[in-house]
């Protein structure tokens, strides 16, 4: 497929002008009494695969919602290739090239899987590339689904999404985001609810995306699988970033250990500013 080359030629040519690919600075979000994300800063380079981990409720999804514009930050800013995006509506952020999947997959259950792909293929970001005529998008949809592992001869792609097992729903969710030809792809717990074998079959798809130059952020609870493919890991706890570094190093940090152990043992308050890692 040569669709990748076709994307937004102007955007591709223009370099990031020395700006970091993605920069998050002092980002915070308060929901009533809950500080879901607090003063998070991080940089992401083009082509990197960043993992975000943390106990349940530590603010991972909220951080992604802030970056993708689904939630307005109460503090801080987000820049994508030098451009502030934290005040932009979510659909405009997608058009700039940030696509995301959702932790809770919610497809159009009564539509066949491949018809679920039509809406992302109708996106202003890729609409021109697919051709306008009725039915053209179906072919592209089937191609993309095949890429994420819908075997073409098995006709799974023609089944209503409601009849698909979780593994296929997750693949569909991934394919929908890939259809947008993003530059930054954010995957929120893509692996959760999948068997080891299913995860093992999705990992090569992600590796292939990386070879194509894709930048990725992956939120995961499946640490073992994540650490095999991540370049770098950020750990959140109670909305704060408590660690940032290569997977192996991060897991050795005391703060991270206690955060995870603390969460597991349901003990109170582990986030101590003093233990914050650089």
């Amino acid at each position, binding site marked *: 497929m040569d669709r990748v080359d076709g994307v937004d030629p102007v955007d591709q040519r223009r370099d990031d002008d020395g700006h970091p690919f993605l920069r998050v600075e002092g980002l915070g979000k308060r929901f009533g009494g809950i500080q879901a994300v607090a003063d998070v800063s991080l940089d992401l380079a083009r082509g990197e695969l960043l993992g975000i981990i943390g106990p349940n409720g530590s603010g991972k999804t909220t951080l992604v919602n802030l970056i*993708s514009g*689904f939630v307005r930050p109460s503090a801080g800013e987000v820049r994508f290739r030098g451009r502030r995006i934290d005040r932009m*509506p*979510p*659909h*405009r952020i*997608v*058009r700039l090239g940030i*696509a*995301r999947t*959702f932790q809770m997959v*919610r*497809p*159009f259950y009564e*539509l066949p899987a491949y*018809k679920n792909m*039509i*809406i*992302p*293929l*109708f*996106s*202003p*970001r890729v609409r021109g590339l697919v051709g306008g005529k*009725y039915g053209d*998008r179906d072919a592209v949809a089937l191609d993309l689904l095949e890429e994420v592992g819908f075997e073409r001869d098995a006709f799974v792609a023609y089944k209503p999404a409601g009849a698909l097992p979780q593994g296929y729903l997750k693949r569909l969710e991934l394919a*929908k*985001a890939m259809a*947008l030809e993003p530059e930054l792809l954010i995957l929120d717990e893509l692996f959760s609810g999948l068997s080891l074998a299913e995860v093992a079959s999705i990992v090569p798809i992600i590796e292939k995306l990386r070879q194509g130059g894709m930048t990725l952020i992956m939120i995961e609870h499946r640490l073992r699988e994540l650490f095999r493919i991540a370049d770098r890991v950020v750990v959140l706890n109670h909305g704060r970033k408590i660690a940032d570094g290569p997977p192996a190093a991060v897991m050795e940090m005391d703060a991270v250990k206690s955060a995870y152990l603390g969460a597991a043992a349901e003990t109170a308050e582990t986030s101590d500013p003093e233990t914050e890692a650089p």
Partner: protein
Amino acid sequence: MTERRRERIDRGIKKRSEDVFALASWREMLYLAGPRLLPVALVLFLPPLLSPYWQKVMLSVGVFGLLAVSWDLLAQAGMISLGQALFFGMGAYGAGLLDRYLGMPPFLSLPIAAVLGGLVSTLLLLPVLRLRGIYFSMVTLILPLMLVRVIEATKIFGGTEGLSGLTPWPSVWVEMYLILGALLAALFGFRRMLAADYGLVLKGIRDNDRSVTSAGINIYVYKAQALFIAAAVGGFAGAFMTHVYLFVGMPVFALDYSILPIAAAVVGGPGGLAGATLGAAILVPLSEALRGFGGLRIVFYGVFLVVFIVAVPEGIFSFVRRKYHQFERWVEVD
């Protein structure tokens, strides 16, 4: 021991016709085209057979059919309108004003009033496009009722008297075939639109707007477009009626124009516009036929509505379509 049981089977052609395939025979062609040809044939050949009174009823079917199609279109994009009278009234007043103050002939004022009415209605509802569910519905319900009071209080556009003595259509046949033709055009045209990718996006907004937004699609642009199309369809019906009644006044914002289209869409089966049209074609004549009951008319009408909704909850159209695509036969079972 054997006993007999009725077995229901889907006709194979139904499955095949959902995809591209070569038609094997005239019978198959007729099988597929029949449901589409039937309404066209009815519209062409039925009116001349009717008495003048029932011809007027047929006009009403056209008008309420358009309002029901307009309602169903909006519902497809997740907007439940309780104020079809807003669209109807906008078009009606538009045509009245164009006729009275610019001396425009009906054939010009009709399309212009439809578009203008659609635009004004869309602009009025634009600020509440972000409201979901019942909140949006409430605003559509209130707006036409408010406009009536505005006209009454400010005495604009003829105030409580309205505008009368407007230009009629050249003949009753122009009248008849214009409105029924418009209904068929709207029915088939918008059905096609909903079946295309554009329609998928509209329904996507209804079912899961988060998913549509995350495709980089501005849902409010699409909602506004759907609103404009639906409002223009409703406005067309209103503008048409202005040149039938030769009068436009506050009654064009009446609740009837809001409620009956919803009843038609629900009884016929919302979702594909065909149900809405069929619903109007059943309910409008039914309401006329019940006139003999005098004061109890509305009671009987209500009973019919409830019976329809309880007995055929999927909608009459879906029910008929299902039956059309099945055949039954007796089989022996052990």
